[in-house]
């Protein structure tokens, strides 16, 4: 008999705006020590399905219409709350997507770590603390005796996810549900966390349900996979069956949506060595002040070099990829160019004009030449302005256009980004994430910029949508001959899109050159580590490869 068997699960949300059928007839079996991957895009019902197992769905509006989930012969879905509480966090534990928000910021790690033990068994506080320290040790947190008394904000994202894993596994559960556990993490950290989950799973013989939108991640860890789309299971089978004998069109679409590395970049690059660079950054340095932290601290200043002596040159029409992990300074470079932060030293020139020293009116006028697309299309559009207002505002900042010409321009912009002209009177919340990013691109292009900075423009979007937005960006920069700096942590996207790539590490550029060159023959150790950490959507390659670990000095 299998450990967990879910049969014919139907979950509906009864909302004010009508009925949403989130899960329509999900079936799966999970055996001891096995890993089940659930793949799908946002809204596919994969998370809802797993939350229902632990009674974590908000009800109302969620209602389990039918089905059963039998765990050791008992139905999790129709169990009294007290009984379910004994199982949750004890026999079935869970880790979540965002480690930055999933730990209680008001409590010390120790107090949070011992909680699953103290509520599920009659263990003394001292004993629980010892076990918590051992669990921290096991997930690879250095100096656990000292760090158990830290607060979550003193930890990095990767370390917090390790704490989450320690907290989930401290009671030695039978099943671990991992809901996109590495989505919010850097690629090298993601690789470490995936290895850690695998190691602990083998050691303690835990069954894992791994929810992800990333087929690369799933390929490496799952034994069997179910693919979900809008509440339905469209395909299920062993990992090899799904990847090598794909039968359903939607699965094929998912697999093809991943920008496969090696596609020839569309923009042609004529690197005339003697040519004056169109855009250049010369010895840029941007510092942040950090003050001494403690409660009774003396407030002494320390300087953090976010961008440390960076120089870059771009020819007109070129696309440069800027890659690196969070905190490496890539977004600070973008902000420095945009003049959103004060630079400490260095010079930035665009088409012969030194934009780093412009002030007041001059700067305001020049801003039209360099524009930016931001990461989160949900947060970067004003929710109280219609699309027309947002775009017209951008157009009006630089010149006074009369009303009918303005309308024409806005409609043109909408056509350019592939949105219907009628949509201009709508508000941002009426659009999907992909559509909003199209609007954000239209806003950036409104002033016909010469340089476009795209800061992780697709990382908040589903894979199938990502491909569309990337193609749109590519089409537009070619059409208007825009020079682009493309910032991303996703290396396959960078490879797909860019002519040259700069790899950043701790504020410095460690490697810089033609994109294909860097991906095929990475010279710097860090680049090698970064490349080896990318999950590949190919189970055979994923199982057999080795990761390079980079340790500075």
């Amino acid at each position: 008999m299998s450990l967990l068997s879910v049969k014919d699960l139907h979950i509906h949300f009864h909302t004010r705006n009508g009925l949403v059928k989130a899960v329509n007839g999900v079936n799966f079996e999970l055996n001891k020590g096995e890993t089940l991957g659930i793949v799908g895009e946002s809204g596919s019902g994969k998370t809802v399905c797993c939350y229902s197992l632990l009674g974590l769905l908000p009800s109302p509006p969620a209602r389990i219409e039918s089905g059963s989930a039998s765990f050791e012969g008992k139905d999790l879905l129709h169990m009294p709350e007290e009984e379910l509480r004994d199982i949750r966090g004890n026999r079935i534990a869970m880790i979540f997507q965002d480690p930055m928000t999933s730990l209680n910021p008001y409590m010390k790690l120790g107090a949070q770590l011992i909680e699953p033990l103290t509520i599920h068994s009659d263990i003394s506080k001292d004993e629980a603390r010892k076990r918590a320290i051992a669990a921290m040790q096991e997930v690879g947190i250095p100096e656990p005796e000292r760090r158990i008394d830290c607060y979550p904000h003193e930890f990095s994202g990767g370390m917090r996810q390790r704490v989450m894993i320690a907290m989930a596994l401290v009671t030695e559960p039978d099943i671990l549900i991992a809901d996109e556990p590495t989505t919010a993490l850097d690629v090298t950290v993601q690789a470490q966390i995936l290895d850690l989950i695998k190691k602990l799973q083998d050691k303690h013989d835990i069954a894992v349900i791994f929810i992800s939108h990333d087929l690369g991640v799933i390929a490496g860890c799952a034994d069997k996979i179910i693919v979900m789309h809008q509440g339905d299971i469209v395909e299920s089978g062993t990992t090899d069956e799904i990847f090598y004998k794909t039968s359903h069109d939607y699965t094929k679409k998912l697999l093809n949506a991943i920008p496969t590395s090696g596609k020839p970049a569309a923009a042609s690059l004529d690197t005339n060595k003697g040519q004056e660079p169109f855009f250049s950054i010369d010895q840029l340095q941007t510092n942040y002040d950090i003050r001494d932290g403690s409660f009774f601290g003396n407030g002494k200043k320390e300087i953090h070099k976010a961008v440390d002596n960076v120089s870059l040159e771009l020819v007109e029409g070129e696309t440069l990829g800027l890659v690196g992990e969070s905190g490496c300074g890539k977004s600070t470079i973008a902000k420095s160019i945009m003049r959103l932060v004060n630079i400490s030293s260095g010079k930035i020139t665009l088409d012969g004009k030194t934009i780093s020293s412009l002030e007041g009116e001059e700067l305001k006028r020049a801003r039209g030449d360099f524009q930016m697309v931001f990461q989160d299309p949900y947060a970067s559009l004003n929710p109280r302005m219609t699309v027309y207002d947002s775009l017209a505002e951008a157009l009006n900042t630089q010149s006074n256009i009369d009303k009918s010409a303005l309308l024409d321009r806005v409609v043109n912009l909408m056509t350019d980004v592939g949105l219907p002209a009628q949509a201009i009177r709508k508000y941002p919340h009426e659009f999907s994430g992909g559509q909003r990013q199209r609007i954000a691109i239209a806003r950036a292009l409104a002033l016909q910029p010469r340089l476009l900075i795209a800061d992780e423009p697709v990382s908040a979007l589903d894979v199938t949508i990502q491909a569309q937005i990337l193609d749109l960006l590519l089409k537009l920069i070619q059409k208007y001959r825009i020079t682009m700096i493309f910032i991303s942590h996703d290396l396959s996207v960078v490879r797909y899109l860019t002519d040259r790539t700069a790899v950043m590490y701790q504020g410095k550029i460690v490697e810089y050159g033609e994109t294909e060159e860097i991906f095929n023959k990475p010279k710097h150790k860090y680049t090698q580590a970064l490349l080896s950490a990318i999950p590949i959507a190919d189970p055979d390659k994923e199982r057999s490869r080795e990761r390079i670990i980079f340790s500075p000095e």
Partner: protein
Amino acid sequence: MLKFILKRLLQAIPVLLIVITITFALIHAAPGGPFSAERAVPPEVIEALNAQYNLDDPAYVQYFIYLKNIVRGDFGPSFKYTGRSVTEIIAAGMPVTFELGFYAIMIALTLGISAGVIASLKPNTIQDYIPMSLAMTGICLPTFVLGPMMVLVFAIWLDWLPVSGWGYIPGDKILPALTLGFAYAAYIARLSRGGMLEILSQDFIRTARAKGLKTATIVTRHALRGGMQPVVSFMGPALAGLLSGSFVVETIFQIPGMGRYFVQAAFNRDYTLILGTTVFFASLIILFNLLADIVTVWLNPRLRDNSNSGN
């Protein structure tokens, strides 16, 4: 943190100076004086009195004499209560007002937080609507309506509690404390509900539920600390408002507290007493706000670590 506290205390000096200046200008601009009375007093007597209290000097001279005395900690003699200094009057009235304020704030916190937490657990259901409608009533009902109503019901009809007084008959402190506390309980209930709703929607509450914790444990251990932050920031101005605003309740229930002197002083043009009580209340407001800020930082470990850079 020490530096932050010192800085805030230094900032208090100009604030107090502005308060003194404005109050001084206003009371001197108001018609009449401390010795205007209905019955005729010989002009010589008035003149002698004016000379005795420096009232015959130009206003700016009086202002500087007053400032000089304040620095020495001397609020001067009261003009109306002959023979008593302002410091003595404050010292006599303040303990009563403080005691009343303390009971009231305890009632407000207990009622308000419980109502807010209960409402936040099941938003937009009957469990939310009932405490929140009560809170709305509390906010709408002024103390001068609520006070007499309570007297009517509990003292006269039911005859459970005394009508007025302070410490004369057992139980006479209950009605005034309830009256004063209820309006603040209402505000606190609304703030707690908002704060708790915000915290309860956070990811880490989901984590706590996934651990298998009971709702009661989640509320007390995981949510309350963060959810109470709006209440804590409100406590500064609330405590100050409670003390300076207690005169209505003190008048209704015949309580010999500070609030009545404050109001009487304004009617009597008792210059020194007005200034003295104003300075005293202003200092309290500054102090309570500082305390609220310190508690806010202490409650939130993330703020604790950059409390220096923020200021």
